[in-house]
């Protein structure tokens, strides 16, 4: 099955980002296809390359590794502007793009799953 994922929250404050990550991993393990992961609103904070949580899981790195495996991960360009993000502040495998990517994921996915507060 083709699955699209939307993340509406940043890392650590809520469980949404962790849940989205683990859902994605589990779906891939079951042989499903992830058409893309869209990081929206505070979700763009998931791609911050300077995240360095002492002694805890590094959520940005987790996303980066997933992206390195070929999973399309996109952070909302406008939301990034609102939060002072530029491309060079993001991990390598999270790209900046507009809501067209969100529309594309919705149109190509059999199921579209949102993780938020």
């Amino acid at each position, binding site marked *: 099955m083709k699955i*699209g994922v*939307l993340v*509406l929250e940043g890392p650590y404050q809520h469980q949404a980002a962790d849940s989205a990550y683990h859902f994605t991993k589990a779906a891939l393990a079951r042989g499903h296809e992830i058409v893309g992961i869209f990081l*929206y*609103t*505070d979700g763009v904070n998931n791609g911050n390359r300077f995240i360095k949580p002492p002694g805890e899981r590094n959520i940005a790195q987790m996303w980066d590794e997933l992206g390195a495996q070929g999973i399309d991960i996109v952070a909302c360009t*406008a*939301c990034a502007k609102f939060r002072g993000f530029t491309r060079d502040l993001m991990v390598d495998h999270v790209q900046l793009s*507009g*809501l*067209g990517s*969100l*529309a*594309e994921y*919705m*149109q*190509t*996915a059999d199921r*579209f799953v*949102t993780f*938020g507060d």
Partner: protein
Amino acid sequence: MTMRNQVAVLMRKAPYGSVYTAEGFRSIMGVGVFEMDVRVIFIDDGVYALVKGQDPAGLDMKSLGDGFPMLPDFGITKFYVHDHSLAERGLTPDDLVMDVEEVDGNAVARLLAESGTVLPF
């Protein structure tokens, strides 16, 4: 228009306490231009986004009550408000900034089931 092109944008939260309603509004504009058939559903505290006389100037924010009525000019014409959510808050359709279809809970469920995607804000 296939089901995959149908998206229901769900407005659930009060308009100014968090980013969700404003971002929901932006998402309607944003995905609407990509051949998506958008229906907008106001439910729970989301109904406050349509109440007349909103003035968030004290918060240095723009009124969403001015924004939603502009959407039909951009081809977004399907608006629904949950009747029970309105009544619970002592509101009637006359209190709203635009004409929207009043629907009951079953109709909301049907709208969501018929939509390929739901964007919950």
